[in-house]
């Protein structure tokens, strides 16, 4: 294994807070709420208990040409929107296609196509089923769409690990560059599955907030009255690049992805291991692979989805694995939960926090849960950071940690 530094030279995102990464970052700093009432007819039709959502601020079809968009599932559309922004941000480098890779995760893939085409089959019959149904629903679809567009011949991969997928995309891309497989990667996650069955399924798990009468304060990570997550949609992408490659072409450098860590709880299909040992292993691997110590980690951008059990377990893990010196924030208080895109979008926020020395505050913490024994920033906090960590966890016991350092 070679020992190449991996830097970030471009970012892109489309989220409930904005159609680009800079707009999303500014909205995080401004404390903008991305959660609104869900008035889709299927909410009423199935009498769903959850009537709030975190929908995209900018429709992908406003950005992607019509004919191209109609061949893509919505999760592929958001992946492309974010990937193109990130690629342009990196200066649209001319590189050997065999040295370019794509790793884009998704939790569910083309759920809107799968469910929508099944409805068409039932109501209209075979002839009305779209010829592109399969490539639109496959979970490698977002990665494949980005790879095809970017002509990435060095490898196109699609990690699927529920809500850790986006972070895992970035983690695997880091490994591919460190291993010397490729010089540049487009990496991140994409998700767009706000429709009846996912909402029904998460509702049946009692995982979602039902604070329907107050969407703006429904997502309350670390608050004592938090009652679940809000389903969101979006995508986040980074251009990861071997440092000497980036320097040679004079690219801008946001920061270094200094280390990654991945682990699994192997404990329960959905519940996190109560002592956070699996999460701790991922965090410690990330810190160790960066050659740093826990004392260096001044900030944690937490997974914190606003569920009663998840947030306190994570806070306990952070306290134990990193310490009480680190400043913790939860972007999901504003974005909702972007599932397989969340780790990528929050990774971008972590990177920008390190770069700019400011941590966006967590919204909607009216009464901090006394069981949360970490320093939660509830207002924007200016801190001189050398390193910050983003952790992501997914159903299936997946734990992923990304560690960014200041360049």
């Amino acid at each position: 294994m070679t020992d190449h530094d991996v830097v970030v030279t471009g970012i892109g995102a489309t989220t409930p807070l904005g159609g680009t990464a800079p707009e999303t970052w500014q909205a995080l700093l401004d404390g903008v709420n991305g959660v609104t009432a869900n008035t889709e007819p299927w909410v009423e039709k199935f009498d769903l208990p959850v009537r709030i959502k975190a929908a995209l601020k900018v429709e992908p079809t406003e950005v992607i040409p019509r004919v191209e968009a109609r061949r893509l599932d919505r999760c592929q559309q958001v992946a492309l929107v974010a990937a193109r922004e990130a690629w342009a941000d990196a200066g649209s480098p001319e590189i050997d296609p065999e040295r370019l890779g794509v790793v884009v995760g998704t939790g569910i893939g083309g759920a809107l196509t799968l469910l929508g085409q099944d409805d068409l089959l039932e109501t209209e019959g075979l002839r009305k089923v779209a010829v592109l149904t399969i490539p639109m629903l496959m979970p490698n679809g977002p990665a494949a769409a980005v790879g095809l567009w970017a002509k990435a011949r060095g490898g196109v991969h699609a990690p699927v690990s529920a809500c850790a997928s986006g972070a895992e995309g970035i983690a695997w891309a880091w490994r591919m560059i460190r291993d010397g497989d490729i010089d540049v990667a487009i990496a991140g996650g994409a998700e767009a599955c706000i429709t009846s069955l996912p909402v029904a399924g998460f509702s049946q798990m009692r995982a979602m907030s039902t604070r329907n009468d107050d969407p703006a304060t429904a997502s309350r990570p670390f608050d004592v009255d938090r009652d679940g997550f809000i389903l969101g949609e979006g995508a986040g992408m980074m251009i990861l690049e071997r440092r000497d490659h980036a320097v040679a072409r004079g690219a801008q450098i946001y920061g270094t992805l200094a280390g990654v860590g991945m682990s699994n709880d192997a404990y329960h299909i959905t519940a996190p291991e109560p002592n956070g040992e699996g999460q701790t292993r991922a965090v410690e691997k990330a810190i160790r692979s960066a050659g740093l110590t826990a004392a260096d980690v001044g900030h944690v951008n937490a997974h914190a989805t606003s569920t009663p059990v998840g947030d306190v377990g994570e806070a306990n893990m952070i306290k134990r694995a990193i310490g009480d010196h680190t400043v913790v924030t939860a972007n999901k208080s504003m974005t909702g939960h972007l599932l397989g895109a969340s780790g990528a979008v929050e990774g971008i926020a972590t990177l920008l926090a390190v770069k700019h020395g400011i941590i966006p505050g967590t919204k909607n913490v009216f009464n901090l849960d006394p069981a949360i024994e970490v320093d939660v920033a509830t207002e924007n906090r200016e801190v001189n950071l050398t390193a910050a960590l983003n952790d992501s966890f997914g159903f299936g016991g997946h734990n992923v940690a990304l560690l960014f350092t200041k360049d």
Partner: protein
Amino acid sequence: MSNEDILAGLGEIVEEVAGVPAADVTADKSFTDDLDIDSLSMVEIAVQAEDKFGVKIPDDELANLKTVQDAVSYIERNKA
């Protein structure tokens, strides 16, 4: 419905499915070589043409529709 009407209707479908301007969909054009339409898009065009013109276009017939004129002639012969 005249051949011109069928041609114009086909043009609208091709523009909708593949983004080729309807005005470029002229009788002498080959779907694959001139209009750059792939086989999956051809299936979609056929399904829409069936609805628009009230014809059946089975797969073995579709395979013979190489040019726009082939499609216009087929629809002219088979339309309801």
